[in-house]
């Protein structure tokens, strides 16, 4: 499978290119950047539902930690600690920390599942410089018509791509 690759070294130039790519309805497969550029998602109208999932994980975390605490301290093994009620006001401390743990771990796990990543996976795409400071736009050539390809090459050239390549 051959791919059209445009390499950028400046995020502002990449933003210009992204605007024109959206306008030209280019079949962009992937954009690989060394840091997070959230404007890209906005420009390509990609909505992530991870924030919403994270909220539900948070709710799940609160309830499950509370249930665990309630079971241990009230139902299963009620201890008299200084005459305090078993359903104690100190629960929120543990609930707070447990919620953070559960939310963060499940969100990262969800991200791995959504991105189809796992430890020891072979890289899907390799190109010199993409692990350093280069930003790379990938376009699937099999979906391109010849006229579209010349148009895209023109866009990459005018917006100042460092290199246009085929892999």
């Amino acid at each position, binding site marked *: 499978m051959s791919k059209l690759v445009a390499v950028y070294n400046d995020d502002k130039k990449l933003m210009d290119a992204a605007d024109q790519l959206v306008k030209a309805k280019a079949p962009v497969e992937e954009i690989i950047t060394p840091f997070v550029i959230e404007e890209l998602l906005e420009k390509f109208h990609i909505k992530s539902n991870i924030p919403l999932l994270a909220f539900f994980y948070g709710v799940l975390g609160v309830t499950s930690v509370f249930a665990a605490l309630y079971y241990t301290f009230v139902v299963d093994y009620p201890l008299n600690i200084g005459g305090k009620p078993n359903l104690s006001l*100190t629960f929120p401390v543990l609930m707070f920390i447990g919620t953070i743990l559960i939310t963060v771990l499940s969100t990262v796990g969800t991200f791995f599942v959504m991105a189809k990543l796992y430890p020891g996976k072979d890289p899907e795409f390799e190109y010199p410089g993409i692990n350093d400071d280069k930003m790379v736009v990938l376009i699937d050539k099999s979906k391109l018509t010849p006229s579209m390809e010349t148009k895209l090459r023109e866009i990459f050239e005018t917006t100042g791509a460092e290199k246009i390549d085929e892999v």
Partner: protein
Amino acid sequence: MKKQFIFSKKLQTISLILMVIGLIAGILAYMADTNRFWANILMSNYFFLLLALGAAFWMSLQYIAEAGWSAAFKRVPESFSYYLVPAFIFMLALVFFGLKYVYPWANPEGHIEDFNKYPEFKEILEVKEPYLNKNFFIIRTLIFFVVWFLTTALLRKFSKKEDNDKAHALKWFEKSRFFSKVYIFAFSLTFIFAGFDYLMSLEPFWYSTLFSIKELISGFFHASALIILIVYFLHKKGYYPFMNSSHWHDFSKYLFMGSVLFAYAWYFQYMLIWYGNIPEEAEHYFLRRFHFSQSLFVLNIVINFFIPFLVLLPNKLAKNPKVLLIMSITILIGFFLDVYLSVFPPLVHTFAGVGEHIHPVFGLYEIGIFLGFAGLFMFVVFRNMAKRKRILPVNHPYIEESLLHHNAH
């Protein structure tokens, strides 16, 4: 785009009417019940004093973080600090004329039941005498206000110089940045004692080292709510036509963060005292929760934490100016409730018409006097805002960034 803020006739009449209402309510309250009158003066004055100080803290934070987006709104928190002058006058009046009506340590027989019966009461007050006495209290009030007034006046002075002196604008900006650090340091140091004096000494047998931290956080949180309220009003009147959802979102982040911080401060003091279970510490919460009003006690944390936290969580609601308006009004009501729960419970039993059972006292006196202070605050803030030639800072290095502010989300 309107360049200078105009304190319109309509607003002037509104604030004057509010002040007249406050004056009438004050006179009536003074004739009916002196204790209640002074408790109200303390409550309403402290409410706006803390907002003025918290707004100056908010502005200093923008300076030291070199925040660009908020540069255009600098006038709003800046004008709040003019309220320190009337606040000082009312505090002086309270200190000279109302001390014995409000503070039990100044008049133990009048406030504490069976004071002469139990010598322990006297012993505790005698131990605290070197700190809690009238003369030192006056000296401390003077020190607090001199420090606050000097530091905020310096910030305002540099801001004015920056506007008028284009060639050295950056130099004045750097000076403001430095004196913001000075303000934050001086304010936190003095406010710890101010919190002890004005609110905590209402219960001279109770003490909590966390109390002033909670009040400081609350001032910062609620001041950002009032800033949003006034910015919304100015935006509606056409003073900030450049505002977009990014500006609103950044404002709402302050409310969201503040609500979590407030809940944290509220909880750490309550939880530690609950767990420690030492009678003289627990008395504070026992009075509020079981003697005064359990529902108001719970309502405080619901209004100040749960409602803003859940409402501002979704991205769409957090960017909506109308939602922000409703939230900031709710949060300011929550602040009133918080101050009310600090001031009223220990004093309620001295009000006329309250028998053996303590219950919340809230009536037209409270509303009237609070409205009077609100009118005064409005008048002071808007009048001084109108004195500046431009509503937008002129030579501020970040003003362009603020006008073109845009967040990705």
